[in-house]
């Protein structure tokens, strides 16, 4: 694993990324995700949700009517009538630490540029968590999930204009997680790290990326135990940018009958740089593993066809972007 890490760093340099230590490296130590650490929480404010539906808000909604309406329609919930200011404050400043043992829907909407750390301990519950981040300047969001006997749908939309660090770490036992992330990177250095430690569980990750001129590192690092299924798929549109895809997955010797599938498909413009580092370590003969990576330049025939129908280049790109979003939503 260390050799791979060194190799990754070397290519990181080739792609002209900034000289920064990859925060994802830390998460290679999966033992760091345990209950004790969880409950320590540091500066993070601890909460015990009481409501059936827990909503976190910040000032984005009061200033962005359009977004409010879109989200209200999507979740069938009147944000303006249901503000939980105490939770909002906790989230807005440092993040939260929550023990969840009942069915919940949690929504974060923020344009914060601060450092947020969230810790969730989910047990025997069906939880949906939606995070929506926009904003300028540096921002860092770190989520850690410890999930037991639960079903979790985690959705994250990151639309930061520059320098964002998004790190989601999962430790799963007898659970099912669907994670859908949408990263729109415009400039600066951006990182999306997805790490998981899976015991007899199912993980499905869908990641959509539109990178229009930033240095972006996308990592999926995982270790699989017991009978588990992991499916990681990414779609990207890379426009004049540097993007690094890293998939390092390890099927443990105790991972009987597990399956690992990773699939990356990207479409790039001529001057965009892309590097993909797949690494599957399968230590059990009963495991199945598959990796695929395909990269195409923006299809000239496709563009010519659309232009011949009277659609200009800008709209052509818009259509392609919408297709990526459509895949993500499906």
């Amino acid at each position, binding site marked *: 694993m260390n050799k791979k890490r060194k190799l990754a760093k070397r290519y990181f340099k080739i792609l002209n990324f900034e000289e920064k230590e990859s925060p994802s490296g830390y998460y290679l130590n999966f033992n760091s995700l345990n209950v004790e650490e969880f409950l320590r929480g540091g500066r993070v404010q601890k909460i015990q949700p009481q409501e059936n539906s827990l909503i976190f808000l910040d000032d984005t909604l009061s200033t962005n009517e359009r977004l409010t309406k879109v989200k209200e329609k999507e979740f069938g919930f009147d944000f303006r009538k249901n503000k939980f200011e105490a939770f909002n404050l906790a989230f807005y400043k440092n993040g939260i630490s929550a023990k969840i043992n009942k069915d919940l829907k949690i929504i974060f909407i923020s344009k914060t540029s601060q450092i947020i750390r969230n810790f969730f301990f989910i047990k025997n519950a069906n939880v949906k968590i939606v995070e929506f981040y926009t904003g300028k300047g540096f921002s860092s969001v770190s989520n850690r999930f410890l999930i037991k006997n639960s079903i979790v749908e985690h959705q994250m939309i990151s639309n930061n204009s520059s320098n964002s660090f998004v790190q989601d770490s999962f430790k799963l036992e007898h659970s099912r997680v669907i994670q859908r992330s949408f990263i729109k990177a415009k400039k600066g250095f951006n990182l999306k790290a997805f790490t998981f430690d899976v015991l007899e569980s199912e993980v499905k990750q869908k990641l959509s990326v539109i990178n229009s001129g930033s240095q972006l590192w996308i990592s999926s690092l995982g270790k699989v135990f017991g009978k588990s299924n992991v499916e990681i798929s990414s779609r990207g549109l890379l426009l004049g940018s540097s993007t690094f895809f890293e998939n390092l997955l390890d099927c443990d010797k105790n991972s009987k009958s597990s399956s690992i599938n990773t699939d990356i498909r990207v479409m790039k413009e001529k001057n965009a740089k892309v590097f993909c580092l797949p690494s599957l370590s399968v230590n059990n003969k009963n495991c199945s593993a598959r990796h695929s990576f395909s990269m195409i330049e923006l299809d000239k025939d496709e563009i*010519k066809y659309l232009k*011949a129908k009277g659609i200009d280049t800008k709209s052509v790109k818009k259509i392609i972007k919408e297709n990526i979003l459509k895949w993500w939503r499906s």
Partner: protein
Amino acid sequence: MKFEDSKVYAILGPNGSGKTTLAKAIMGIQKISKGKIFFNSKDITKLSPEKRAKLGIFLGFQQTPELEVSLQNLLFAIDGEKAYEKINKLKSFVEELDIDLKRELIGLSGGEKKKLELFEFLYMQPKFAILDEPDSGVDIDSFKKIVKAIDFARKEFNPTLVIISHYENIFNYIEPSFVYVLKDGKVAKSGGKELIESIKRYGYE
């Protein structure tokens, strides 16, 4: 080559003679090494494909790319909300051609692609349309529907129609005013519809 208003032209020629290249050059998606293209006395040689389309030039492609987008969404990208109204007017043809406008343009059969291209032709109502092999890869029922749609277009907005085909059969139903035969990228023969009969009998040689 000259194409007059509201007339029907047939373009024939053996494989690799340059029929599709000519169509693409007129549409602006194939660069030309020499010569000029005029449309309504305006030099459009350097005009982009989308601008040519907006002037009223249409190309019904012989082969369409696989696209994760439906024809309906493409039409919305062109016309916005107006597309609803225009599609509604052609509702009978959606049923007649048996097409699904909401289906993504992936994994379609040759016949389905042709019918969608033809629907687009009816929708756009161009002044000048090139239909590149509209009859290839279609069954007899679809062929009849395609002919019916072209007839409708001639009655409704009467465009200049250039039909490229390998099969003479289509010209039994849509009679051309003039025929061009291409060979090695050049016009080898031209004349009236009797030229089709001659090709049918003696081939391109």
